[in-house]
């Protein structure tokens, strides 16, 4: 391999990235060394198995990925702002939308949600930690390593450029040679392992670790939505694992699953991809639904409307999510019967989703609505998400989809659901639970600015795209002609995109501003909340979460206790030593070996892949022989942490 094939060259933007990556690395290393932070980093973060810290690391990574994906988006929007622009060439543009889509879905939306689930769900169910804290760390580190592997493709070897859907045979060796597509395969594969483990971990956590008295039908809605999401993850991610493995075999080991040669079948890739891909979009929307349920109920100061219907509708959506995948390729010519069946199943998903929308609205009915920023995002969600939803139903009408497919109509649909659904929820949830994670709220005034700039920018960016789609503008084109007449609306769209970018910058500024100036919380109940996570006496829960595991008597237990003025104060004599799991460096090391293996496979250096895999198995064996029963936190330490007067 020649050096010009290893390092990506020939573009000032890439050199800029090279330099900034090296500078950032040097800067971090320098900082860690100068302030003697290495040990702190290792003890507190790299080896932690605490769900709250893992959650925070997930969220930080996700925000970074939102930035990366967002910069990609703005580069695309810049190129598309005017006809015949020369800002990016075709190859670059293709790489950028591929990484944009992949990063936003796999490395931004999923980890953001999983991060919030990590922080919140164990607290909401009154647990000390998840069922498998060690495995939780493995999940995080494999996700993180997968994301890093995917991201370095930008400077080493070249990025994938076959779209986030990577249709074959375009993505095959013959038409897309080199490491780019391999990065996609290996990055997603490694991160996917972590996601599957998260699925099992949280399913068992929610089923088995609930505080006494919290029956399934007393669980908070976010916990419920997480439970349902985990079920989808458990059954959908193995499909992705296999699909990626098959394509990896096609590219590295000469098999013919999807290739042009050997009677491979390109349609099968599309089929397997969407068998995973459709459930995947519900994986990224259901936790969002759960968060909005919590927030809307909290700030309407009212019980959730139709609790049971909310649960059943989610279960329906989960079941349906495995029955609609063909709507992504109505145009493949599978015949009238297939298209009719999948049209109907797809449209049917609108029914339970509608039930949820109306239940949210009626949660506010007879409430006392407070317009905090999390609530604003939730209202914005309802208003904007329905646009995405009903246009989804339009896409589901196969005969009409022949005209929408592969156009900006579709692009607009999925941004309306992904941004107004998932991203709004991530912002809302982040702001809502920020005091739980960091001990202070984000500034509300600045927060409202962020909301309005982002929401308006979002509509300005994506609403015109419906019309571009109806005017025949296909997705994934890097430029278009003057005569097409698509120029003005694209310019509008680009302006909206940049407004979102500005809002993002203001959000980051808000984090800095609040870190410096925000008033510190003194109780654990920053918003007058309803669920158990707000019941810890300190602003940030201690590492063991609850000095004494709460006993639950009904839905919204904490809120009802507060209403009745019966919140119990802890006394020293009811405390018992608490059993906690020990930290471990193994997950981090195992993930590093995954990186070695993945990188080796990307470049088809089998010796390196084998070293990495041997390392992975080594850490597995090491762990199997390790009998670490954790440790006990003494009563004295608990008293000290909780500041209980004796």
């Amino acid at each position, binding site marked *: 391999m020649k050096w010009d094939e290893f390092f990506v060259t020939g573009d000032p933007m890439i050199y800029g990235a090279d330099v900034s990556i090296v500078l950032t690395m040097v800067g971090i290393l320098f900082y860690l060394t100068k302030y003697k932070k290495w040990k702190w980093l290792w003890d507190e973060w790299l080896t932690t198995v605490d769900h709250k810290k893992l959650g925070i690391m997930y969220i930080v990574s996700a925000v970074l990925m939102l930035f990366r994906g967002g910069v990609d988006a703005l580069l695309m929007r810049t190129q598309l702002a005017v006809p015949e622009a020369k800002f990016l060439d075709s190859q670059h543009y293709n790489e950028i939308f591929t990484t944009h889509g992949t990063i936003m879905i796999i490395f931004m939306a999923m980890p953001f949600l999983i991060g919030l689930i990590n922080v919140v769900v164990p607290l909401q169910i009154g647990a000390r930690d998840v069922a498998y804290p060690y495995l939780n760390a493995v999940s995080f580190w494999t996700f993180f390593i997968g994301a890093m592997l995917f991201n370095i493709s930008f400077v080493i070897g070249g990025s994938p450029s076959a779209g986030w859907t990577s249709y074959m045979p375009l993505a095959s060796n013959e038409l897309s040679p080199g490491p780019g597509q391999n990065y996609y395969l290996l990055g997603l594969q490694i991160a996917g392992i972590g996601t599957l483990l998260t699925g099992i971990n949280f399913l068992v956590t929610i089923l088995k670790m609930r505080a006494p008295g919290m029956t399934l039908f007393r669980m908070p809605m976010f916990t419920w939505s997480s439970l349902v999401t985990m079920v989808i993850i458990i059954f959908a991610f193995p499909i992705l694992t296999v699909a990626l493995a098959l394509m990896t075999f096609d590219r590295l080991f000469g098999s013919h699953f999807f290739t042009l040669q050997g009677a491979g079948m390109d*349609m099968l890739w599309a*089929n397997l991809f969407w068998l995973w891909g459709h459930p995947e979009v519900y994986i990224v929307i259901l936790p969002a639904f759960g968060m909005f349920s919590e927030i809307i109920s909290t700030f309407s100061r009212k019980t959730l409307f139709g609790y049971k219907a909310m649960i059943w509708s989610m279960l329906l959506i989960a079941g349906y999510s495995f029955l609609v995948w063909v709507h992504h390729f109505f145009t493949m010519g599978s015949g009238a019967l297939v298209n009719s069946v999948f049209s109907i199943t797809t449209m049917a998903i609108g029914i339970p989703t509608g039930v949820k929308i109306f239940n949210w609205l009626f949660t506010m009915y007879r409430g006392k609505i407070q317009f905090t920023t999390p609530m604003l995002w939730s209202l914005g969600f309802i208003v904007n998400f329905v646009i995405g939803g009903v246009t989804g139903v339009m896409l589901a009408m196969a005969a009409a989809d022949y005209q929408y497919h592969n156009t900006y109509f579709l692009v607009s649909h999925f941004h309306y659901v992904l941004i107004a659904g998932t991203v709004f929820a991530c912002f809302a949830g982040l702001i809502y639970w920020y005091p739980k994670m960091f001990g202070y709220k984000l500034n509300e005034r600045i927060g409202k600015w962020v909301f309005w700039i982002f929401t308006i920018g979002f509509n300005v960016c994506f609403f015109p795209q419906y019309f571009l789609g109806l005017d025949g503008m296909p997705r994934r084109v890097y430029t278009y002609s003057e005569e097409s007449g698509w120029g003005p609306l694209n310019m509008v769209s680009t302006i909206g995109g940049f407004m979102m970018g500005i809002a993002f910058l203001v959000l980051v500024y808000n984090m800095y501003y609040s870190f410096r100036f925000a008033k510190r919380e003194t109780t654990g109940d920053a918003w007058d909340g309803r669920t158990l996570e707000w019941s810890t006496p300190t602003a940030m829960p201690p590492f063991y979460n609850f000095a004494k595991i709460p006993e639950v008597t009904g839905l919204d237990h904490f809120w009802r206790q507060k209403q009745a003025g019966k919140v119990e104060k802890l006394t020293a004599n009811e405390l018992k030593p608490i059993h906690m799991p020990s930290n471990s460096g193994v997950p981090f090391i195992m993930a590093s070996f995954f990186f070695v293996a993945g990188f080796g496979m990307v470049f088809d250096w089998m010796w390196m892949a084998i070293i990495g895999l041997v390392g992975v198995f080594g850490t597995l064996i090491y762990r199997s022989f390790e009998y670490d029963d954790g440790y006990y936190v003494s009563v004295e330490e608990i008293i000290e942490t909780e500041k209980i007067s004796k």
Partner: protein
Amino acid sequence: MANKTAANEHHGFPWKHLIGFVLSIVLTLFALWIALGTDLSLTWILIIIFGFAFLQAALQLLMFMHVTENSTKSNLTSRVQIGNILFAAFVAIVIVIGSVWVMAAGHAKHDKHNHAPKTENHENHGSHGGGSEHDSGEHGSHE
């Protein structure tokens, strides 16, 4: 409750295991005979052998794997275990039957990859020597 059975059962002779084993051997041989030793129609053969396969899977789950077993006070665990397997079976059927159906539908009749007489005109295309013939019976199965 299953708590007790789980323990009691394991004091005597492992009848359950033995019965399970014998049944699985019988079912295997029977499936083999149906498939290769009879001249039932293809559809019937498929129905029967897959019926047996599911039976045998259930056997393994119940006799060997103690899927209904639980050891906590609530029934939740065993319900989760069974529900999990049933949902897995649902997903499995959707994946397999769904894929076969969707990939064949609309394509089988004009999907010409198999019985293609390969092109005649290329120089460096040695690998495509004879080109095997397959009867259209294979294609019938798509429909």
